[in-house]
């Protein structure tokens, strides 16, 4: 696409951001708080060194989760089950990874493979149900989330619980030192701050891989044309059923990586307070970033920034729920403006093309 169209495209999230700040200010005014002061506190807190590390750590799983969702979105498939998929993957990987010890790179690679395999298998169930039984993937993945949560709760207390533990709550055995991902603090020379998760590197690679897969490969081409016109896709020789299963497995595979940032970098075991909700948050980030690897990175960082900087609000007597409202405003408004801009670009192209025909 031409440069001017790209510039127009970028304007949508900026407009959405501005409007949602405006709406949030309005709400702050209504509840009697000073919006300028509030945003100033949030911003100042959000750009502290400690906060920045925390923001990046938070954005890693958000970003990967968004990618998992986006793979499905690209072919018009709604994988709402990233939540259940990553939790299953994390639990099984945490358990198996803690059973032995090999050199760190291999150990981590092994854990990654286990997580990816578990999650994509769990996702494949939804793919199978859609293709063979005609069950819509939104229904099946939501149900699979519930089933997954139940399975996790049960198996964590029975099969996967750490044996002979003197800890009250169920949790898996801690990963051995070789299974922990070293932080990147040394590399960035920030050893005075808390750990910057090493999984950041993987997240960047995942982003690049996702871009390559969707925009450069033939499989990605098939995904995209099925997403925009399933009938033409079928006439072009694509087997839609096969593609649904492939897309579901791929999406689930990415989902498997969502929990590994926290697992390998901080928790080092699966516990009952292992972070949840990342799968759902990813849907919002994918929407905000328009399924684009760069857009989703910005989206993940933005949401992580809002979450982190909102933590200071309670201390200043401002309800921190304002942050969740802001996220929702941004999403709602951005969806509208993306559509407005898409129509504008089509109109411009029609104009250009008819000029050409008149010559």
């Amino acid at each position, binding site marked *: 696409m031409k440069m001017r169209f790209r510039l127009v495209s970028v304007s949508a999230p900026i407009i959405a951001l501005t409007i949602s700040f405006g709406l949030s200010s309005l709400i702050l005014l209504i509840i009697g708080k000073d919006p300028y002061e509030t945003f100033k506190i949030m911003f100042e807190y959000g750009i502290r060194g400690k906060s920045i590390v925390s923001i990046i750590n938070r954005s890693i799983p958000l970003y990967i989760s968004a990618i998992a969702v986006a793979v499905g979105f690209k072919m018009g498939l709604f994988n709402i089950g990233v939540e259940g998929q990553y939790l299953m993957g994390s639990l099984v990987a945490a358990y198996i990874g803690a059973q032995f010890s090999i050199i760190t790179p291999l150990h981590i690679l092994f854990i990654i493979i286990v997580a990816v395999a578990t999650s994509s298998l769990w996702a494949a169930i939804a793919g199978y149900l859609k293709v063979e039984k005609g069950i819509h993937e939104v229904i099946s993945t939501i149900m699979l989330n519930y089933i997954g949560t139940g399975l996790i709760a049960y198996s964590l207390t029975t099969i996967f619980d750490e044996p002979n533990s003197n800890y009250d709550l169920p949790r898996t055995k801690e990963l051995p030192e070789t299974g922990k991902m070293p932080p990147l603090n040394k590399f960035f020379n920030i050893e005075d701050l808390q750990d910057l998760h090493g999984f950041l590197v993987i997240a960047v690679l995942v982003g690049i891989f996702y871009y390559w897969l969707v925009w450069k490969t033939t499989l990605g081409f098939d995904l995209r044309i099925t997403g925009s016109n399933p009938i033409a896709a079928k006439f072009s020789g694509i087997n839609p059923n096969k593609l649904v299963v492939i897309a579901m497995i791929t999406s689930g595979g990415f989902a498997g990586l969502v929990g590994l940032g926290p697992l390998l970098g901080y928790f080092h075991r699966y516990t009952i307070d292992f972070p949840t909700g990342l799968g759902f948050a990813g849907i919002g980030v994918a929407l905000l970033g328009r399924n684009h690897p760069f857009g989703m990175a910005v989206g993940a960082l933005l949401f992580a920034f809002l979450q982190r900087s909102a933590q200071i609000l309670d201390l200043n007597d401002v309800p921190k729920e304002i942050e969740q409202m802001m996220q929702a405003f941004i999403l709602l408004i951005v969806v509208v403006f993306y559509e407005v801009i898409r129509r504008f670009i089509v109109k411009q192209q029609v104009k250009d093309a008819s000029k*050409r025909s008149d010559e």
Partner: protein
Amino acid sequence: MKLAINIENITKTYPGVLANSDVSIKVKSGDIHAIVGENGAGKSTLMKILYGMVKPDSGNIEIFENKANMSSPKDSINLGIGMVHQHFMLAKNLTVLENIILGIDRPFLKNIKLSKYKTEIQKVMELYSLNIDLNQYVDELSVGEKQRVEIIKVLYRGAKILILDEPTAVLVPQEVKDLFKNLKDLKNNGVTVLFISHKLDEVLEIADEISVMRSGQMIDTVLNDNVSKTQLAEMMIGKSLPTPPARLTSTDEEVILKVENLKSNDENGRTIFEDVSFEVHKSEILGIAGVEGNGQKEVVEAIIGIQALDSGKVIFKNNDLEKQGTRERLESGISFIPEDRQLQAMIMEMDLTNNVIIGRQNIKKYKSSLGTVKMKNAVNESEKVISAFEVKTPGTSTLATALSGGNQQKFVVGRELEDDPSLLIASQPTRGIDIGAQALIWEKLRNSRDEGLSVLLISADLEELIGLSDRIIVFYQGKLVKEIEAENITPEDLGSYMTGLKK
């Protein structure tokens, strides 16, 4: 006599399609008036304009001799126009009564007075002699009964003009009889009926006047008594014939495509087509004639593997294609131009470079050994197609949706001819495009045929079919009823075979 509808000079264009071109029609009050035409002739657009679903670019509409300006179905309903869609708009899990009053009454926190409505509706039913049990659930009704519910629904809302869109397409013969009886009762009670169809027998049975549309234009309106089925078929299909240009080469003996005893049923077990066998030779254009809905579209879709077969064989260059999916078939040298370019052939929101790849994603030209798309080749190929087929576009990065219909179609035809296929299946290759683009596509098809390409051509445009084909086969009611050399056929004869008059 009073006019119920007077439409004057309606024109409606969609991006890339001229759907209605200067269409005028007069419908007398209390008549049953049929509009016939092939799929894509513009009937549906005209009805959507009349029902307020689509706004025309220009033209006037008068309803009961008052100027009307409707911008939504609500306006049309208020003017006394009711529409029964081909696909029923009924809530299955509600009763007939509930369906009929659905959307009329919007009580706020109070009960709907069902009994009040019931008596009112029964009055309407008595007036027009339409019978149905109002307490039955729609789910339990037959197709014919559901249609009756739709009609009652529309009449109860005060419709004086009833539009029926292909009402018999979903009915069995007995139900058609019942419907026609109902329509006559309606007529006797002063309701004007607008009946859209492409089934000529039915139209001749029921209509007082018949209007024929073709390629977005109103060809003529005739009285039922003054017209024969053959004449109608000619008007619908078009009869002026160009002299087919002399062939430069002769048809080769070699058989490229052979189909044997093809048979397929739909999910309800009704036969779509059966006993279909024919051959296409090298360097031959085989035309397929048939009024829409007679199985020919499904037969070609079976050849490329989209329509499932119950039995029969498709043999392409001596290979049985049974085990091959659509992708393998397309890659082994069959090209396909589907009848709907925007829905089936192109991705409208992608640019031309991406669109040139569609259908050929997996061939070496576009797929590297790493599994990536070779974009450079795609740019080159789309440039080639653009220049060879005179596609008017600012460049290869223009979205398909920005082009006019003729240019989209030239691009699709160019794409399908680009890789020197052995067989081209072309379904309505020039439907709804301008004359210039049509002439260019005809020329390209002839040239490719002369160079050895085999073509299977389906067209509703008899002029095109007879002018291009070497041989023509005719489908009627899912069967192949006739095979003729194109030189020896008159359009009158062809029309007779297509409508089952001659065997």
